């Protein structure tokens, strides 16, 4: 991962976390999305929901102080913030399906120009790992995706049409990669912000769909 251009994993997470608005209920997927909870977003009050029914968890517990019966979606032993609540699994997915999640942040293999995304099954694989991704994708108010801009083989992950089995269709509204911040806009990807050190032409060459540069393109702040 260290050889990749542009933003670090934490910087990608930071950029997405800065979209969170005061009072939002947010669900973070495993991997890079988990890092959104490390971002300093000032005094905005965010409630983090984990699919196993933990509403209002905090940071990872310090070593030696873990409650081994308390984990987040990634299985990490987390802490609870004052005011937290625990519900059972069917209620937890009632929170999701009922539209009570303001934003979910997930990783993905591919995102399409029309806002489809794929994150549960590789090419040629029998079965896969769905977990809570399909419920979150179909039902959260906003679906944000964080992923490396290209595969290890250099192939684009932002594509015209997903050729992997999709998790949901037409739901993604924001994509952060190590190259920039994008919006699937139907006929192309709208580049809203560019990572330091990248050029529009480099991004265009590494993107599978049409790239539309937003008026007033900004550089992503990385501090």
């Amino acid at each position, binding site marked *: 991962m260290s050889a990749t251009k542009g933003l670090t994993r934490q910087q990608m997470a930071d950029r997405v976390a800065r979209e969170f608005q005061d009072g939002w209920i947010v669900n973070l997927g495993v991997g890079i999305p988990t890092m959104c909870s490390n971002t300093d977003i000032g005094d905005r009050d965010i409630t983090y929901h984990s699919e196993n029914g933990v509403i209002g968890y905090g940071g990872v517990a310090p070593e030696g102080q873990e*409650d081994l019966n308390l984990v987040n979606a990634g299985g990490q032993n987390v802490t609870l913030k004052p005011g937290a609540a*625990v519900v*059972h699994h069917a209620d937890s997915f009632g929170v999701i*399906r009922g539209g009570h999640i303001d934003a979910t942040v997930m990783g993905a293999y591919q995102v399409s120009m029309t806002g489809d995304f794929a994150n549960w099954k590789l090419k040629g694989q029998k079965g*896969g*790992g769905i977990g809570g991704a*399909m419920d979150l994708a179909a039902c959260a108010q906003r679906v944000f995706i964080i992923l490396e801009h290209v595969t290890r083989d250099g192939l684009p992950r932002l594509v015209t049409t997903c050729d992997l089995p999709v998790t949901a269709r037409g739901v993604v509204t924001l994509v952060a990669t190590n190259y920039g911040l994008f919006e699937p806009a139907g006929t192309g990807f709208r580049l809203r912000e560019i990572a330091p050190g990248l050029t529009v032409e480099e991004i265009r060459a590494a993107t599978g769909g049409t790239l539309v540069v937003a008026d007033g393109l900004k550089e992503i702040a990385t501090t």
Partner: protein
Amino acid sequence: MTQRTKLRSSFQEAVADIPDGSTIAFGGFAMPGTPFNLIKALMQQGAKRLTLVANTTGGAQQPRMPDIGMLVENGQVAKVICAFTAATRPTDVLPFTKYYESGEVEADLVPQGTLAERLRAAGAGIPAFYTPTAVGTELAEGRETRVIDGREYLLEYALKLDYAFIRARTADAAGNLRYHRSQRNFNPVMATAARTTIAEIDEPVLPLGAIDPDDVHTAGIYVHRMVQVPPEPDGIWPARRQEKRR
């Protein structure tokens, strides 16, 4: 039958009569709430051609705890109904995956919220329901959908169980249960969906009346057998996960 008869003296005794071909659900999400001791007892008991229901088949994390992948490896399983037949990270390997890919064991891959709701529906007498989850994906291919108020929904059926294996922190003699933190997860809905629910309990079972009725998470009417988990090494408890270097 008196309520006292719910307490069993061993996990072996609690699972002794489970017949071949049973459908058994296992609570747990990562380590919390997983009935490790009942899984181990079922491996020793040896029932075969089982259908297992759980969030995941397990085994991707270290240390490896008793998981339903071990029942598969033990040759006891015909089918698994779960939200993961493979791990989320392609670099993690579930021991179950090769049995599924070779066709030795069947699997139904179900989105996690749909799995929880199918269990809830079974326990609540709802035969089927519509959900927006998985619409437009290959899971919905060839299946019944319906447009309600302009949105497309997928028909899903209740999932009834013969047995539920669950784990809770506290119980009273009536089988009323309380869970600690995220130990709760699937356990309450699985308890309602099963004809026979067997609970492993962290703490000594309390006398009737020791849990305030307002504080009960799973009502004792759903719990049929209980076993208290002994201290280590005889009992199996959640462990500290070893973080992998990535």
